[in-house]
């Protein structure tokens, strides 16, 4: 594994131990989607985590592990078919008790989101500049002239130089990199305290990915907004995120500072994910179109129903107890936690 340098210094000092008061505290967060009236297996199952002001937290997991569900929960955007339980405390207030109008005051203003497909997350029939202005308009009473200046300023902040062209453009006239910057500028417009980015670099190629990560890191430093960065690619997190939360089957199976988790992963699932990551791709990630190698096996419904560890069917370190009992969470060192019976092996 790559030894972490550079950014990681702040990472270690900023990392929060679970339970410390922070910007956002989730406790026992559980989400079930109902399909045709019947509840399905939960997409999130009793999740606890904390986000401190200004830190970058990577959420790592395979497809279907519940990452997007987590993001949508934080913004109150789960579909009506979803049931959510537990608590999600943001600056002392439980977001899960919010009604739609209270949520509207939070979304975009205090907690913002950057989506995976920037091209699809912009209206195809409205000028890009107006769409950024709409975000400001939703949260601030200001004249439209002042708003235009603000939009131009925020476009410049995300590194877009041809502000005039971008302002007047429609989404289909912009490149992938430009679109992702526009999406980020929408999220940044109201100076939120937390940005949730769901695979924001997935549609970009290697160089653009790195540029985007640098930009995210830079805005995080400049404005001090915390960032939840969701990805299935561990290569993007090394040297970028402060902490990593590893998710499997709707649960957090491991959490800790990126430097320490990547140097010595504890959960077999984390180990597997990291071993699959070729060294040359550790920072920039893969170019678009190529897929990361995946762990053998898949998550099945049986894994969800099993009383034991849901990773058991794919785990090489599995022992007798894994199939019958659920591994409780342990904190092997300060600032780390893992849920596995055999993490020491």
């Amino acid at each position, binding site marked *: 594994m790559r030894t972490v340098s550079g950014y990681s210094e702040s990472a270690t000092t900023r990392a929060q131990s679970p339970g410390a008061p922070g910007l956002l505290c989730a406790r026992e967060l559980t989400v079930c989607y109902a399909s045709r009236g019947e509840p399905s297996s939960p997409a999130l199952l009793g999740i606890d985590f904390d986000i401190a002001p200004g830190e970058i937290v990577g959420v790592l997991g395979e497809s279907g592990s519940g990452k997007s569900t987590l993001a949508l929960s934080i913004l109150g955007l789960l579909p009506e078919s979803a049931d959510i339980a537990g608590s999600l405390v943001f600056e002392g207030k439980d977001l899960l008790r919010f009604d739609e109008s209270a949520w509207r005051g939070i979304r975009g203003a205090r907690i913002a989101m950057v989506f995976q497909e920037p091209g699809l*997350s912009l209206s195809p029939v409205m000028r890009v500049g107006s769409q950024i202005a709409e975000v400001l308009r939703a949260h601030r009473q200001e004249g439209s002239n002042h708003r235009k200046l603000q939009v131009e300023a925020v476009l410049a902040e995300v590194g877009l130089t041809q502000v005039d062209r971008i302002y007047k453009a429609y989404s289909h006239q912009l490149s992938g990199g430009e679109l992702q910057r526009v999406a980020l500028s929408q999220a940044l417009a109201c100076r939120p305290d937390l940005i949730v980015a769901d695979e924001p670099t997935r549609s970009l190629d290697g160089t653009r990915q790195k540029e985007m990560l640098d930009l995210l890191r830079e805005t995080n430093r400049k404005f001090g907004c915390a960032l939840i960065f969701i990805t299935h690619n561990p290569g993007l997190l090394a040297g970028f995120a402060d902490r990593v939360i590893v998710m499997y089957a709707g649960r957090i199976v491991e959490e800790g500072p990126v430097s320490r988790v990547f140097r010595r992963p504890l959960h077999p699932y984390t180990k597997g994910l990291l071993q699959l990551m070729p060294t040359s791709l550790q920072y920039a990630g893969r170019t678009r179109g190529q897929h990361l190698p995946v762990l053998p096996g898949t998550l099945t419904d049986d894994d969800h129903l099993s009383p034991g560890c849901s990773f058991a069917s794919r785990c090489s370190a599995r022992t007798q107890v894994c199939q019958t009992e659920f591994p409780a969470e342990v904190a092997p060192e300060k600032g780390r936690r893992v849920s596995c019976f055999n993490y020491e092996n």
Partner: protein
Amino acid sequence: MNYLERRVIHGVLLLAGVSVLCFAFGVMAPGDFFDEMKLNPQISPATVAALRSQYGIDQPLPLRYGRWVESVLRGEWGYSFAYNCPVRSLLMVRAGNTLLLTTLATLLAWLIALPLGVWTANRRGRWDDRLGLAGTTLLLSVPELVIALVLLYLAVRTHALPAGGMVSVGFGGLGKQAQLIDLASHLVIPAATLVLASLPLLVRHIRASVLEVLQAPFVQAARAHGIGGARLLFRYVLPAAANPLSSLLGLSIGGLLSGSLLVEVITGWPGMGPLLLEASLARDVHVVIGAVMASTFFMIAGSMVADVLLVVLDPRVRLGST
């Protein structure tokens, strides 16, 4: 060549094609306008033959088509045997009446369907959406003939509305305002029939279009930025739905026009419907062709209106992407 120019050329070609087809079918069908005269003992076969050659019916098809085109270019649109006058003068009045009825019906139908469709889409699965769905299903299962008959029956029973015709006897002697009211009262039943008949499909299509946009990622993204309520609806959802809705408008104009032909006959509205029926029965060929061409023209014009709207409303079409 841009999008609209292409559409205009397409429309002209379509009209030419329709005219040829109409002509071919109209002429190839057995019998003609003067057949009936042959049965009349007072008219000698020689007279009938003379009439036929006078009107050029005895000539070969291409020649007759050529003469018809010539008369179209002169602005006469052929000659009506039954009315003994150029088709144009007949058609203008009738087409005007049809246009009045269908324009009114289209406007009313959309004014009612648009809010209903948008509302039910936003309330998907709730009680009011289900009520709307049940209502449209019910209405959809009733043919327009039945709707018209029920309305006519009610009008006759209650004497609240005139049943049939376009104006009352003595219309000319009324004042301007009274004339308008009289005309409007005659419009109620045919217009209501057309609106009721077209409403259910319109509401459903509008609902489906809006629903599709509501589920689009950019609407969720807008919500994630704290945009909601009327702002979300009017700035994001409806403009994005304008594309499918413009196409639907074009289709609905066509549907209302063809529906109008039947409804006019049932409710006695003196538009192109009764004229077409009458002329077909009498084998008054040029009138039939004229009426079919006029309907085709209106349908093409309707879809052109929709196309222009599309270009105005959708930058993707305007700026020529995809």
